[in-house]
């Protein structure tokens, strides 16, 4: 537990206003964007500078107190939640853009800088910061680094890891290290690459140097309308196989379209469509972008698109994108609670997996909406429900597990951009064996021997090879059976998908 003397010492560092101990204040930080998880931190501390972060981390090291770094709290995995014995270290006050270097196309920022503000600052130089999570108007770049965040335009430009060149990191013991170099060349083994996506387990990034890209001069945004989810999925595969790399290739299903069109973010999507694809092509020269757009339009029509509409101007393009980017918010209208999944499958598996997810939802009597990065095969099946209804949460959990199983069986993984956090911890032994999980835990302990930074996340505690080996054997046996059965049914997945052991969550 956190004693009064420690709270006093924290106050000495950051000031009384920036240490929150009252229950109501702490409750503000008890959830992230995935509201099904709730943890009440012991104390919330909001340092205002790098030096304050270092002082706080060193103080906590002396006292052996766990802590959880947190940005804007928009994450979708329960990754930035702290338990009653831990301090929540909120970094939103470290929000300065320290440098924009247009000649070298790099910028250095503090972790609390809101994602979109960097692009705004770079815009006068004709540059932008490419990773664009849907929450980009609120999420922080420090949080993006922790989660290796993606976004629609990462299809062409790569996820956060592609754009981070160098980091200043405060380790768990308060030591400050410099990783990477401004030019992007690793200085030794690629510890920047290792740090990005480590969900806060390796320390706190206090300075982040990123690559900026030129704002594309030519853009075409297409909206294709499909009568069936399957044909939309097949069209995605065909576009990817054509060799044209769209800047973004997003899909929304019928349920999602209704939610968006019923909201203030209505974008003019066709309400009778089973699915729409939002395809953006960009580049330097209008003629070549137009040629690629024409090729993509032909592919979409060849694969069953009823119509393909091209945004005529920037305003229409923004409207189409607003619908997509605010889709999660719109789905909040469907029901009281929302579970957001984040699996990735091979793109050619999309048609089968989408149908399988639909069947799972139907079988459990749940409302499932799909809005996702189709070009990357990064699915976001969202289940809307009212958690107050007895037994419903258990059905949602079971359906979620089956959806994950369907994605794993298809050769996929359990998270593409949201991270493991608390939410996906139970699935980790299903994709990694005991040796791989043990290796990850070993890496974590190099950075943080006592495992005090964001404890209980990413790697399940019971990661010993014997335990996980049993689980994986069970999984493989079950899904070998599933594969045989489903092959005869032709649906690729099964109704008897695995049950994820609750013991996988660890203690």
């Amino acid at each position, binding site marked *: 537990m956190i004693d009064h003397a420690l709270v006093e010492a924290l106050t000495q560092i950051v000031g009384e206003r920036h240490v929150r101990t009252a229950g109501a204040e702490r409750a503000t930080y008890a959830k992230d964007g995935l509201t099904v998880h709730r943890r009440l931190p012991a104390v919330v501390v909001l340092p205002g500078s790098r030096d304050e972060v270092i002082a706080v981390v060193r103080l906590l090291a002396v006292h052996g107190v766990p802590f959880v770094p947190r940005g804007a709290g928009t994450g979708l995995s329960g990754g930035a939640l702290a338990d009653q014995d831990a301090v929540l270290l909120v970094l939103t006050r470290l929000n300065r853009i320290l440098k924009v270097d247009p000649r070298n196309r790099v910028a250095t920022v503090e972790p609390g800088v809101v994602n979109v503000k960097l692009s705004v600052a770079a815009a006068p130089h004709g540059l932008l910061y490419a990773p664009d999570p849907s929450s980009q108007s609120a999420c922080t770049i420090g949080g993006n680094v922790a989660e290796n965040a993606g976004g629609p335009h990462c299809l062409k430009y790569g996820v956060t890891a592609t754009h981070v060149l160098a980091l200043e990191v405060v380790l768990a013991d308060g030591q400050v290290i410099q990783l990477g170099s401004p030019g992007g060349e*690793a200085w030794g083994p690629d510890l920047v690459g290792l740090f990005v996506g480590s969900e806060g387990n390796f320390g706190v990034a206090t300075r982040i140097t990123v690559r900026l890209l030129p704002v594309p001069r030519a853009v075409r945004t297409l909206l294709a309308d499909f009568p069936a989810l399957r044909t939309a999925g097949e069209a995605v595969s065909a576009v990817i196989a054509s060799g044209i790399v769209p800047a973004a290739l997003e899909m929304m299903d019928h349920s999602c379209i209704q939610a968006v069109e019923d909201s203030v973010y209505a974008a003019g999507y066709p309400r009778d469509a089973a699915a729409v694809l939002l395809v953006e092509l960009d580049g*330097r020269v209008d003629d070549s972008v137009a040629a690629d757009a024409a090729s993509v339009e032909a592919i979409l029509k060849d694969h069953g698109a009823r119509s393909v509409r091209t945004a005529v101007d920037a305003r229409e393009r923004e409207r189409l994108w607003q619908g997509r980017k605010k889709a999660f918010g719109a789905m909040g209208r469907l029901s009281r609670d929302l579970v957001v999944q984040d699996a990735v499958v*091979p793109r050619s598996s999309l048609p089968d997996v989408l149908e399988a997810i639909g069947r799972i939802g139907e079988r459990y009597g749940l409302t499932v909406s799909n809005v996702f990065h189709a070009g990357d095969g990064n699915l976001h099946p969202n289940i809307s429900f009212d958690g107050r209804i007895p037994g419903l949460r258990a059905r949602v959990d079971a359906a979620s597990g089956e959806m994950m199983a369907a994605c794993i069986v298809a050769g996929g993984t359990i998270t593409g951009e949201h991270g*493991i956090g608390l939410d996906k911890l139970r699935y980790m032994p299903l994709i*990694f064996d005991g040796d791989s999980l043990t290796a990850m835990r070993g890496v974590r302990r*190099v950075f943080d021997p006592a495992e005090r930074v964001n404890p209980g996340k990413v790697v399940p505690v019971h990661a010993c090879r014997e335990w996980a080996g049993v689980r994986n054997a069970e999984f493989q046996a079950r899904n070998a059976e599933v594969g045989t059965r489903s092959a005869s049914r032709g649906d690729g997945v099964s109704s008897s998908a695995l049950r994820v052991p609750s013991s996988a969550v660890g203690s």
Partner: protein
Amino acid sequence: MKIVERVKALLGRDAVLEDTGAPDGLPRVAPASPDAVALLLGTAREEGWRVRVEGAGTWMPADAAADLALTTRRLDRVPSIQPQDLAATAEAGIGCDQLRQQLADRGAWLALDPPGLAGRTLGSVVATATAGPLRHGFGAVRDHLVGVTFVTGDGRLVQSGGRVMKNVAGYDLTKLQAGGFGAFGVIVLVHLRLRALPRVDQTLVLEGSREDLSRVADDITAAGLTLAALELFSPALARRDRWVLAVRLAGSAALVGAEEAGLRSATGGQFSALRADEAHAFWMRAAEAFATRPVTFRVGGLPDSSDDLLDLIQHQVGDEWVSASPGAGTLRWTGETTVDRLRRLRRTLAAQEVPLTVERAAWPLRRAVGHFGAYREGVGPLVAGLRHTFDPGNAIAVAVESEDRAG
């Protein structure tokens, strides 16, 4: 029992290569599967053997002090090519030339053109993170990887990443392996991100003085062209009388046509196009040159420091065999040099926040200066800790901890 007999008993008689023994007389073992690699390294840990890891033997000199050499050359299968997903899985010992051909047959392309001979193994390219000129347009080696499977120094088979295009499940050990020089295990399987084979692949070159070509490169960079490669070659590397600025355009006919027009507009139309066979020979010869001289290193600065870095290199180690990617700020050098000269150059570069990575050299030199040199404050213990995590018995002979210690 001698090591050779022990290994034959473990992996079968044909696992020990008889006719291509290492120059220093070490037994050379070629496991035929990832499990066999795991078995060998597990045994090495138990027996206290030190193991030198080799690919095709065309890049890193096969001279690290060890008890046996493990070559990945029999791990040369390509279990999966999925052109519709633009993904492939290949074993680490496949030659890049063979892999490139198999991919091309399926209409797919790995946008990497590493330095070295054509038969250099994929595992070697990944372990040393040696990207070539295509880094300008398509990124570093790590950007082409979606996962790797590797064997730790004590024989554990570890999986990182997966086979899909996005994956944040667990820590990204793939990034640690890319450019880790084998310090954290032996890469056995690589999951790759591919591109469609470009419909058009065009190379244009311009000869001139280094200063003039640097200015042209600045103009090209400022124009924001979409290039696959922009590389400045010394005369010896280009096999021309003067420096050469080479531009590679790859993609659809519309894209290549538009960018070539943009290039000519930005530079006054001075470039001349190479025929496909000429272009192939040009890039291949330059790549091969980096494998034929005693030492090769790379440095990575900011794009606007490219000229200053070339000056510094010229002053301290000479610029006979050098290429630079002005748009990316990276530079690769090859030639003869000494431990003292490398240390001095590294110190000068470090003061400018520019790392120097020794990509290949004889063991005594790389042991002395290390692939990375002295680590910055606080980083050395992390690297040592990671090394201990993945190779607790220090079985893998690798020079990531040099005699130049700082942090």
